[in-house]
């Protein structure tokens, strides 16, 4: 009798683990925050509430709760912070895009983003759910390492394809099929991280093997530098031919961090960074668009750059937005973020900076830091190297992407065209980033099981 009770209790304890209850509590908080944001947007712009609230609120809330339930059933040991953090970011982005749509409607602009963002959010979370459900273990991905590499590089360069490749605002990073545009670079991010992780685990010993030592630095053997060289060339190709400094920087930076993590050799990132900077400098001499970006970054307030086509106008308008927000912001719906071109995508952080102020930005940055920290933590907690590298790569990709795009808008680095993960309008970005969330959740579940077993 008493045995039976203990068994039942242990069953209950196992079925309802503490992790998932923590997650539920935080998730409910994130969802409530989202409700509050949408209400504030409606009150801030129209001084009244309307039923559109439910359209923007319900899908994210329900989809994330379904993901939570799936985690309870299929990945009960998964990290409890990742989902609430990502839902908070996604919801905030959605609220701001909805707010910008209201302004766009008032200005009779045809192009709206919020409704699409809602649909893409649901699609993206559904894909994350599929990842948790159907990828029983991320270790299975090791079977597809080289396919991932081919697919990743293919996707990265696919915008150069005739007919379906599409150039928008001077950068070729879109595919257009049947009226739907898609940024393959976002999916390439996942494929290439899988490829790097698998490849580097296989080759790490030979990569780490050093030849001669020059000036106290151990130089790798010549033939091992081949892959570094190959990927450097691909990155420069993206930069030169596709006019996409951001993607180029993201992939090369990701590659360098992963090769360093795998081998422990500082020489790779140092040489790699040197090669990239040399390439970028040469490119800035040769390519007008890179020169313009650099000039706009260094002297954005010069009238010549401000008024130039492709000059610093957008950057400076973004800075005006930040300054208008000040410490506490104008409140959602209280500012004029729509003055900045691409306020809903590349410059969403300027929109949020204006309406939520420095206080709001600190919260957003902290959410990203939490997300990346949890991801890196998964890397720490795994003993198997593929898992370590994969988790590190996927989380570092978030960090680097945030740094490149937010740093670009805040003048830390030259402005490039990348999306702010989970916040910016755009289906490809949402889908890719939610798939990464699915993968991280899956990886964290297995790592915790290893620990508990």
């Amino acid at each position, binding site marked *: 009798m008493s045995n039976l009770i203990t068994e039942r209790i242990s069953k209950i304890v196992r079925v309802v683990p503490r992790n998932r209850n923590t997650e539920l509590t935080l998730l409910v908080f994130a969802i409530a925050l989202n409700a509050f944001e949408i209400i504030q947007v409606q009150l801030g712009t129209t001084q009244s509430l309307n039923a559109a609230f439910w359209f923007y609120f319900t899908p994210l809330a329900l989809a994330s709760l379904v993901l939570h339930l799936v985690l309870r059933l299929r990945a009960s040991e998964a990290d409890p912070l990742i989902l609430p953090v990502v839902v908070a970011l996604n919801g905030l982005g959605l609220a701001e895009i909805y707010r910008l749509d209201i302004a766009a409607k008032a200005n009779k602009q045809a192009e709206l983003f919020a409704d699409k963002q809602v649909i893409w959010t649901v699609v993206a979370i559904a894909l994350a759910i599929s990842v948790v459900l159907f990828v029983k273990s991320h270790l299975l991905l090791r079977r597809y390492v080289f396919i991932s590499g081919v697919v990743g590089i293919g996707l990265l360069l696919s915008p150069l394809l005739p007919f379906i490749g599409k150039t928008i605002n001077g950068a070729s990073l879109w595919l257009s099929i049947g009226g739907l545009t898609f940024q393959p670079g976002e999916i390439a991010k996942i494929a290439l991280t899988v490829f790097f992780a698998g490849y580097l685990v296989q080759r790490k010993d030979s990569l780490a093997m050093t030849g001669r030592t020059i000036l106290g630095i151990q130089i790798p053997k010549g033939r091992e530098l081949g892959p570094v060289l190959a990927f450097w060339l691909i990155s420069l190709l993206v930069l030169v031919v596709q006019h996409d400094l951001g993607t180029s920087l993201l992939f090369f930076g990701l590659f360098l961090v992963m090769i360093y993590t795998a081998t*422990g050799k500082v020489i790779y990132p140092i040489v790699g960074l040197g090669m990239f900077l040399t390439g970028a400098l040469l490119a800035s001499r040769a390519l007008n668009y890179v020169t313009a970006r650099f000039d706009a970054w260094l002297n954005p307030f010069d009238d010549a750059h401000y008024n130039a086509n492709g000059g610093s106008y957008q950057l400076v308008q973004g800075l005006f937005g*930040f*300054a208008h927000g000040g410490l506490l912001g104008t409140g959602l719906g209280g500012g004029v973020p729509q*003055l900045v071109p691409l306020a809903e995508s590349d410059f969403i952080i300027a929109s949020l*900076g204006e309406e939520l102020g420095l206080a709001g930005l600190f919260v957003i940055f902290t959410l990203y830091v939490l997300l990346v920290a949890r991801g890196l933590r998964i890397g720490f907690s795994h003993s198997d190297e593929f898992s370590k590298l994969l988790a590190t790569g996927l989380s570092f990709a978030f960090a680097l992407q945030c740094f490149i795009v937010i740093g670009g808008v805040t003048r830390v680095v030259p402005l490039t065209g990348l999306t702010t993960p989970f916040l910016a309008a755009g289906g490809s970005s949402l889908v890719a980033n939610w798939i990464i969330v699915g993968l991280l959740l899956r990886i964290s579940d297995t790592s915790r099981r290893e620990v508990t077993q």
Partner: protein
Amino acid sequence: MNKELKRVSAIVAVMFVALFLAATNIQVLSSDALNQDPRNVRAIYDGYQTKRGAILVDAQPIAKSDAVGDAFHFKRKYSSDIYSAVTGFYSYYQGATGLESSVNDYLSGKNSAQFFEQLNALFSGNPVSGASVELTIDPKVQQVAYDALAGKIGAVVALEPATGNIIAMVSTPGFDANRLAVHSGTKSAANYAALLAAKGDPLINKAIGGSLYTPGSVFKLVVAAAALEYGGFTIKSTFPNPSTYTLPGTSTKIHNFANSNCGGGQTVTMLDALRLSCNIPFAELGVQLGQDQIRKMAEAFGFGKTFKIPTIATASIFPESLDDSQTALSSFGQFDVRVSPLQIALITAAIANGGVEMNPQLVENVQSSNLALLNQTQPSQFNSPISKSTADALRTMMVAAVKNGASTNGSISGTVVAGKTGTAQNGTNEPYTLWFTGFAPANNPKVVVTVMVADGGGLGQSGTGNVVAAPIAKKVMQAVLGK
């Protein structure tokens, strides 16, 4: 691998610290400089966050703000072109003019009289609504003045001599201020450029300056006032009446207007000289008085002063350091004498009001959005430039000018009108500036009307003040008197 992971974590930390610092720098340390950048339109947007007060005429809005759904929240609407000289415009892109600029602190809710509302707003979170400004304008008179001047370039000022209240202020061509209140930058800029280029400078309020005009014979009122007040002359004082007059120290000969013989006598009285508007007697009188006496009189009437109605009026000019020939020319309002129609109206009002000149005023009162009276304008005296007897003498001469002199087209049957015309020359081939200034009824003045028609009223050098300007003034006076 964990050692490397720690280092990667440190790199991530450095990247985010950089973002935290950059955001702090932009949003706190550099925010003032960014907010004040002239290319930053957000500061002006902030002015659109609260409901701007209305400008009212007889409690009806001639300018008001309506809620709209765009980033500006409110759009300024103007009821009619006839008020463009009064309201000016309020443009997001081109700034503000007229009352929109001069009473902006009331309209935008920023006047210190609204301190308690502002304090309340700080706690309630509801922005202060702007106060409404009620004007002294009589819409009926304003309409008549605008219609009478339609098709010409010019201005009308009508005011009550006893209070200084402006009951009509018109400048033509008028303009549609709504064209500058549009929320599209390109449209607003294009409309502004079109208005700047338009014939007749619609954006310039000709009633209160911006441009000043040659007064011609209406300035004789100032010279006559100086003669009566300081020079010991009377209206019966006589002056030699030659057919030509050689300017002192030169060989230049001048004539009376249209070579008139000014009554044909050997001498002419001041009364007849003003009645018939003869130049030669006034040149003689001016030289006898000297430039200082004339300037003193002009300044007593308000020359050299910028009146605030509360929109700032350009100060009228009586030139400095004149020789006798220049004094002679200035004595009948030529040479470098330049005036605003408002200034001529004020001189006329001082005469009509027994020598007491009241400050001109366009604002009757200011009411907060909850209808509390924030400010009630009280009539105030500007100066007593002339004595009652001088005023009476000038009135007598002006009545004669309308009755059987050079200003007859200002007469109204059944009412005694006092008036003076002017036909000012602007250069050899330039069109004349045509004037009429007067008041009615002469013995109990209800209204002073000054009309200025620029560009010769379209008639080049063939129009006169009596032919073109006087009938306009007559219509305005009739509108006030109901006759």
